[in-house]
């Protein structure tokens, strides 16, 4: 019996076309000059010009920005997921004083725009001398990524019957061994999706990233917002930058795809 509905392929194809249209347009824009973009419409670019990309690649700020962004985003993802895993386990398996309030409170950290944290973070990181470092941005981003990670992981962990934990104790597994060899494979989908979202939200966060860095750890955010020149908006370069920004994230989801897609592989306990 099919687990899906008739017309599902149609929906999927239609939606993929919808999703790819603006992306195609962004690619299209990136291959044209600003003048062409703002004056004429064309289904395909008249000239496949890589000038915008050249602008980006020759400007070392862009290249470094890329690397810097990747560094702090990866740091943040690893930290957020690592810190969230035990907490999510605790929320899922145990009841303790203030647990429900704490769980909800975590989410409230996402209920204010990052702008609210701007000045305090600036002062804090200046005070402890971590300004313009990758770790500063990675830590700052944990404010909104850790609650997300805990919530998503807790949801997936609660889907695993507690009897599995108990059977493992009876079989003599120590907690770390049980966690790594039995539990984590069962919540693969949750970890995959969490890692991707942490990556994604950190990657697109421009305000904090720009504020807490200046030279050494300057991310793409800085250059991304610096696209208004004397002659007006630099559409082409912005579009090219947008295209290039998709690449790391696409790689990330490609690498975690098995985690997301394999899901609940319950073997014989």
């Amino acid at each position, binding site marked *: 019996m099919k*687990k899906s509905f008739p017309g599902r392929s149609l929906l999927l194809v239609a939606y993929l076309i919808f999703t790819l249209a603006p992306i195609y347009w962004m690619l299209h*824009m990136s291959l044209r000059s600003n003048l062409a973009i703002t004056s004429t*419409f064309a289904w395909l670019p008249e000239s496949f010009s890589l000038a915008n990309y050249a602008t980006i690649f020759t400007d070392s700020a862009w290249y470094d920005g890329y690397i810097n962004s990747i560094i702090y985003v990866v740091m943040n993802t690893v930290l957020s997921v690592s810190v969230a895993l035990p907490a999510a386990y605790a929320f899922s*398996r145990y009841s303790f004083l203030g647990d429900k309030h704490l769980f909800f409170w975590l989410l*409230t950290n996402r209920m204010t725009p990052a702008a609210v944290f701007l000045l305090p973070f600036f002062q804090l990181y200046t005070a402890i001398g971590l300004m313009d470092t990758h770790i500063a941005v990675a830590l700052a981003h944990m404010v909104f990524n850790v609650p997300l990670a805990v919530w998503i992981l807790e949801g997936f962990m609660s889907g695993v019957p507690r009897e599995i934990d108990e059977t493992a104790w009876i079989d003599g597994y120590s907690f770390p061994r049980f966690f790594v060899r039995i539990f984590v494979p069962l919540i693969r989908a949750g970890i995959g999706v969490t890692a991707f979202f942490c990556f994604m939200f950190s990657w697109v966060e421009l305000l904090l990233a720009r504020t807490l860095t200046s030279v050494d750890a300057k991310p793409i955010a800085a250059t991304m917002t610096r696209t208004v020149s004397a002659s007006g908006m630099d559409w082409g370069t912005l579009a090219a930058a947008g295209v290039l920004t998709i690449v790391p994230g696409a790689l990330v989801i490609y690498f975690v*795809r098995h985690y997301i897609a394999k899901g609940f592989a319950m073997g014989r306990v």
Partner: protein
Amino acid sequence: MTTAKPVNQRAWWLVLPVLISVAFSALIPLMTVVNYSVQDILSPSQSVYVGMEWYKEVLRDSDLHSALVRQLLFSGAVLAVEIPLGVALALAMPAAGWRSSLVLVLLAMPLLVPWNVVGTIWQIFSRADIGLLGYTLTRFGVDYNYAQSSVAAWCTVLIMDVWHWTPLVALLAYAGLRAIPEAYYQAARIDGASRWAVFRYIQLPKLRGVLMIAVLLRFMDSFMIYTEPFVLTGGGPGTSTTFLSQYLTQKAVGQFDLGPAAAFSMVYFLIILLLCFVLYNYIKDVGTADRSSS
């Protein structure tokens, strides 16, 4: 075997890293904002305590009321479209093989574009003269101009948001579906369940957790949305697409007054908090109370 969670205060050790990493960087800003919100800051060194004055002013502001209504409508529309669409997509996506990898990568792309670039691209994309969408719509005879028509502007902003964020819902729901053991589907086959019954009694209940996250996330993020609509329409035409955060920024920057801005931020935060709290409790309790059988 009991089904209630065992009480174990030592679980606090597991939660401690999270607490540390989030709390200290969240509480201090919050206190700063609260502090500012009850002061009249005349100059960097001079401030007067004014109590609830700013709050009263904020709550009396009729422009704020309009912006709030617009915001609520927008967030409502976002949820109404993105949640069912995301779930439908998750059900439609292939479960395995090269096709699933391809679909995952394609679906994730909109999420990875920086938000100002999203707004910028859609700005051109929707223009009737030079953009793919605008041009196509005009060719089909639709009189479409998002700079002049409020309806067009609203629709464009909404569709842009749907384009941008539905993949989040879809990915969460997709992962959630993969986490359902095969045995449930097998048992449903043996029980002779229809496809709809499988969705309603197996898939949807098992997706409750991820859907809760999706609903709360999308609600919060759409309620705080700033960059994309601002870049696309600038809040116009007029104030038809000026949502709450843009209004806040306008007031704070325009009036250069930290006190009222801080009070506004607090009110903003509390509204989101309250609505999320309501949503959270509703979703948690839907379909969990005992009731007697027929």
